[in-house]
């Protein structure tokens, strides 16, 4: 089962390496990873998406807590969350197909952020499913390259980690 784990860490050098290497050496897989600052400049937030059963997740959480610079770990499995991913998709777009592509993008509330004679870059945010769906539709035009961020998530409501 897929789990979203949010980790608050001290904003110090190598802390990401510690978290990533913990996963590697304990044999856990990371499906997606996103890191960035929070409202407190001393604290960063790492969002991990990992697969595993309850006991694996329990071990991951406990092992994360053992890292000295990890302040808080939260598994969002039982929590309603807003989770988002962002993708940039550079798609092959000759002038005769451009309208059609723009229309598709609009349905997904995606934005065209770069235009060239031969191509477009489309920016889309949303759940992974939504991005997958757009990617699927754009395939037939020829995706030149694309990049996706790791997923980020916040629990719904006024509580915080």
């Amino acid at each position, binding site marked *: 089962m897929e789990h979203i784990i949010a980790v608050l*860490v001290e904003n110090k050098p190598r802390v990401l390496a510690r978290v990533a290497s913990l996963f590697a050496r304990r044999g856990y897989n990371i499906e997606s990873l996103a890191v960035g600052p929070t409202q407190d400049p001393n604290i960063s937030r790492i969002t991990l998406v990992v697969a595993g059963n309850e006991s694996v997740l329990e071990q991951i959480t406990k092992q994360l807590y053992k890292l000295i610079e990890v302040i808080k770990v939260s598994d969002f499995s039982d929590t309603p969350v807003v989770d988002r991913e962002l993708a940039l998709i550079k798609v092959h777009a000759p002038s005769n197909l451009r309208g059609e592509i723009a229309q598709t993008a609009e349905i997904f509330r995606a934005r065209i952020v770069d235009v060239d004679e031969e191509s477009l870059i489309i920016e889309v945010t949303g759940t992974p499913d939504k991005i997958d769906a757009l990617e699927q539709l754009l395939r037939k035009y020829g995706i030149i390259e694309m990049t996706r961020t790791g997923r980020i998530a916040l629990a719904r409501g006024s509580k915080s980690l």
Partner: protein
Amino acid sequence: MRMKGAQVLVELLKKEGVEVIFGYPGGAVLDIYDALFDTPEIRHILVRHEQGAAHAADGYARTTGKVGVCIATSGPGATNLVTGLATAYMDSIPIVALTGQVFTHLIGKDSFQEADTTGITMPITKHNFLVTKAEDLPYVIREAFYLAATGRPGPVLVDLPRDVQQKMIELVYPEKIKIPGYRPTYKGHAKQVKLAAEAIQEAKRPLLYVGGGVIASGASDVLFELATKADIPVVHTLMGKGAFPESHPLSLGMLGMHGTYWANKAVMRCDLLIAVGARFDDRVTGKLDTFAPHARIIHIDIDPAEIGKNVKPHIPIVGDARMVLGEIVKRIEPITHPEWHEEISAWKKEYTPKYRESDRLLPHHVIERIYEKTKHLDTIVVTDVGQHQMWAAQKYPREKPRTWASSGGLGTMGYGLPASIGAQIGNPDKTVILISGDGSIFMKIQELVTAVNYCLPIKIFVMNNSYLGMVRQWQGCLYRGRYSCTRLVNPDIAQVARAFGAFGISVTEKEDLDRAIEEALKVTDRPVLVDCHIAEEENVLPFVPPGKSLDEMILE
């Protein structure tokens, strides 16, 4: 007061109560060594290889309960520490390792003697620091000692670039340190403690399974109180040796792969297993599915990650062993289990280890004789890793904590000699006995120089069977006797010892053994090495083959 970073470091070490440092100088620690030159309060022990410094700091920590400190230079100095740090990490031993690093502006440029020390040691330290701002130094040193010694102890490494050592900074001693992500739990959850006490009160066949955590937390006295008050037999791990007196009738000895017949039988039969500061290691449990099949399990450990890692306990308690056991003892009424003890006595009658008669020296016999000749002394027993380690664990009983040092988790051959140096430095009035093998001793033989240099009267007994004995045993049992590369062709080890300036004795005949031990005990001004030529193909028994259940012991 302003002074060089290296001097600030040394002042802080004094503040932390550091009396001894084990180390080896080099280019990137010149400033630290220069500061130590003016510091008679801190004794520096010069080893001959940095791995020896780490093991010596480890042996010092295990036998004194203080934090061990070692120093190495950058690059190769630091990488040589790695095995020692990994050894300490696996056995939760508090060490602070100080390493030199190239100037900060040279980091990452493949500079001379540069290695990514914090990167390399990340998975084998409790925590590590690369100090990039000299002003951070006082805080980092304070945190390093705090982290090493508290919670689940472990090695902490501080990497110190040369410019950090050289910069003039203010000497401050941070009274308070703030580590927001580090808050070890010491006090057990009251509800869980109550449940545990009830379970103990109700159990018909309870068994205490104690590990190194009991020694780390200084819980031996409360453990004794609990065991005797509730009449609970005790089995210990290799790391837990000395946590409970082995001469006590409630002690069933060591459990696991080479545990006693009755200890393993008791695990398989008990209805309540109380694990204290132990981590259900594969060498202890054998096949996990069949481990303690009839038992409810109480697991007491200070590290929440150990609970449920290998075995799911019925009553988990996160906390310090001493505090939790103390709470439990208060809640139970005295009780006895005569039927349970009858069962155990029956196992003891059913099987007593029989050793074959031989004209050759037999390993069990050698250890028994060493024990007989030294049991009246205040001793510390250190071992290397292999067959001799198991024979020592089986045949040299320990009564008190911190009188036994052996590499348990990592199983580091070569640990013994430098660790016994650390033990002797930390305990100058005790008799330090090292039981080693002809494989292990040569892994760190250069430290015999150190022992000679500092006139350390360590009694070294080498169980010399001209084999890498434990590997040979496995080849014999599991690889149809195909002894691939385990035959060792050794020099005359007693001669080697003499060449180093130690006292060397060679024993080949049974009748010479006692005299050799007596002679060794008389030497007080230097190490003694007794090379015991034991029968070559003796096996360690009982033996639970890997992956088998604890009741599938090979007994002969």
